[in-house]
């Protein structure tokens, strides 16, 4: 050790080194175990990784083939769209590839789409459906997303866009590189789900709901985000469609979103007027559609989506 060591207690030094060694070993073990659990026991990882791999392969349709549509969104679509039924109802007109990940919003999907395009995905239409609140939220999901949807460049980009400090940025970069760091929140949630009675109901109350900003701010934020998304999609030959899934009390927000989209020259799709959908179509959280509501929404989506997905309107590929 150092020249200034008086080494009062060799055993203490030995156990200090042992403790540091054990800590390093445990960290490696956590990393290995997290990677294993993620790949073999996580439904979310399994679903999103398969959906992502499919999406990367998307190419523009040749004449006579159905239009390729990449549909991305959060739990509003995951719970509200019966993908198999939608595919069935639109099979002649569209080839739909979904990527649905809960608790995601604008920033998650802007950078995820950027990466998808960079990796060669060339859908003709991109449908984004995250709900108005999540579209306007200034946040990014810090588990799954950095690991599965971002690369290093995206992580840095989102950190800069969200004005994260260096600690938060380094945490995001670590979440991109480490399965353990990325999924420790999931691990904690799973344990609490078993340890705390009715944790699933409790967690709905614990999650802060992003609020809708005042109209003027709404238009400024939504407009710039919509324009950025449109430019990103158009530069890769895709048309952007904003899908607004119904949520209770979202009538005014939907109207404002439609106005912002018109200004940004983006198509919006509101298959069901939220005002027309009663509470019985929602789950007990009064946010997500229940199977009955999902059936209704899927049918409406299958009717209106092909009208929005006008092949002729899609920009020409690069």
């Amino acid at each position, binding site marked *: 050790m150092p020249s200034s*060591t008086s080494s009062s207690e060799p055993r*203490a030094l030995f156990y200090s080194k042992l*403790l540091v060694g054990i800590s390093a070993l445990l960290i490696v073990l956590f990393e290995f175990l997290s990677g294993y659990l993620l790949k073999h026991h996580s439904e979310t990882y399994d679903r999103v990784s398969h959906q992502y791999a499919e999406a990367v392969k998307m190419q523009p349709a040749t004449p006579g083939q159905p239009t390729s549509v990449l549909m991305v969104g959060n739990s509003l679509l995951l719970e509200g769209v019966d993908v198999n039924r939608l595919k069935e109802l639109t099979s002649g007109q569209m080839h739909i590839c979904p990527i649905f990940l809960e608790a995601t919003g604008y920033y998650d999907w802007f950078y995820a789409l950027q990466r998808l395009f960079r990796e060669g995905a060339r859908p003709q239409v991109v449908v984004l459906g995250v709900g108005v609140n999540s579209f306007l939220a200034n946040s990014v999901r*810090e588990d799954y997303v950095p690991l599965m949807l971002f690369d290093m460049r995206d992580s840095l980009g989102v950190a800069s866009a969200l004005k994260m400090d260096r600690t938060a940025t380094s945490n995001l970069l670590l979440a991109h590189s480490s399965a353990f760091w990325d999924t*420790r929140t999931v691990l904690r949630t799973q344990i609490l789900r078993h340890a705390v009675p009715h*944790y699933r*109901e*409790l967690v709905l109350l*614990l999650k802060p709901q992003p609020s809708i900003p005042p109209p003027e701010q709404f238009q400024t934020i939504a407009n710039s985000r919509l324009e950025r998304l449109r430019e990103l999609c158009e530069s890769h030959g895709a048309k952007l469609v904003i899908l607004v899934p119904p949520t209770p009390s979202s009538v005014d927000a939907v109207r404002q979103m439609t106005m912002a989209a018109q200004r940004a020259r983006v198509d919006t799709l509101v298959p069901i007027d939220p005002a027309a959908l009663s509470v019985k179509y929602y789950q007990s959280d009064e946010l997500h559609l229940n199977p009955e509501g999902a059936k209704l929404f899927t049918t409406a989506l299958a009717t209106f989506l092909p009208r929005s997905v006008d092949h002729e309107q899609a920009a020409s590929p690069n």
Partner: protein
Amino acid sequence: MLFDSPAYFLFLIPVVLLYWRLNQRAQNIFLLLASYFFYGWWDWRFLALMIGSTTVDYLIAQKIAPSRADPHRRQWFIFSIVLNFTILGIFKYFDFFAGSFLGALDRLGIHNLPLPLIRIILPPGISFYTFQEVAYIVDVYKGRIEASRSFFDYGLFISLFPHLIAGPIQRPGHLLPQVQKPRTFDADRFFDGLMLIFSGLIRKCVVADNCAVLANAVFGGQFGPSNFWLVLLGTYAFTWQVYGDFSGYSDIARGTAQLLGFHFMVNFRQPFLSNRLQEFWRRWHISLSTWLRDYLYIPLGGSAHGQWKTARNLFITMVLAGLWHGANWTFVIFGAIHGVVLAGERYFFPARSKSTQPDVPPRSAGFLTLWGQRILTFNILGLSLAFFRATSLRAAVQLLAGLSNFAWRSEYASAFFMLCLFSIPLFVVDLLLEASNHEYPFATSPYAVRTALAAAALLMLALFSGSNLNAFVYFQF
């Protein structure tokens, strides 16, 4: 750089390894540069402010020692105190006072006064390093310590990274001699330092961050309109959060200091086992409460001039202590509540008030009386912390107004269960520490046992720390 982030440990490990290979002078310069890097990690621009204020105080201290026959000694001293508090005032309080002034004028019918709000970001740790600089200047002026001849030594005393952002506020008489003398590597203390870091991480990442989820939901209105149960849940959750958060931070700071051969004063001593608010302040944020006692309460006259002036001095001290925590009326009310209760305790229980030592006074009360007093003290603290946590006075009043409504919802049971899950283990640890008078649990157990406990702590961290809430509450002060 937050103490509970991987970035901190990636910084700390090479610093400790390299540090012990250097001689004392090189150690100090290296630590000073490392501390500036640590501080600049937030925002490099704030470094200039801290270095500037350190330099000015270093130079002024050379002129104000009693041994110097400088005719302007007193003026330099006053200049330094005014300068330090002016800098703190501009960065921390200007907008608060200007905004309050404009609000008051607005209510009087005077509108659109051209008083600008400067909206500056608060430099991290400014309250802490300002208090440390003021303590140094006062102690040099009063002849309690010698002015540091080396800028590097003084700079390191102010900016040593384990205490730089959120304390514990180090007394010049305690830390400066440690900076000036060579440090020897003590393996026992090094091991204890590691254990303190593990203890701090558990307090912060497992207890505080999980209680924070509940407190944030209550204070954010996610549970709906306030009622008795929500006040209980919110204030208890926040009380445990702020304790776990700050005592955890202090443990990591003290542990890190020990890895580098320094000793920092104990900052928390089982505060929730206090049976009076007076005792609470001898056990909670001890470095701040003793600073306020020595540099504010006693200079104001302390308890030397009768009950009325004692009460006045206590009230002023606690209101300023509240304001130190943040530029908001909520903190003023928090301090005022403590001032009133402390003055009341002085009046009704004068015998207990004589002790000004941070040590815990002996108890003679019976078991039930003692626990009754502890529970009462905890609840008074919890209610005062409702003001500390709320974003505005109105929000705090709205929350407390629900106390008369006892409507129950089934989700509350899960929330209280979760609160107990994370707070009771810390309470048990506190009982163990109180009985053993140790700094961390099982501190005298064999090394093998403590190593196994630390490994178990790491496992707990892995399983329960993923709440994504890693900002320390006291970093904003």
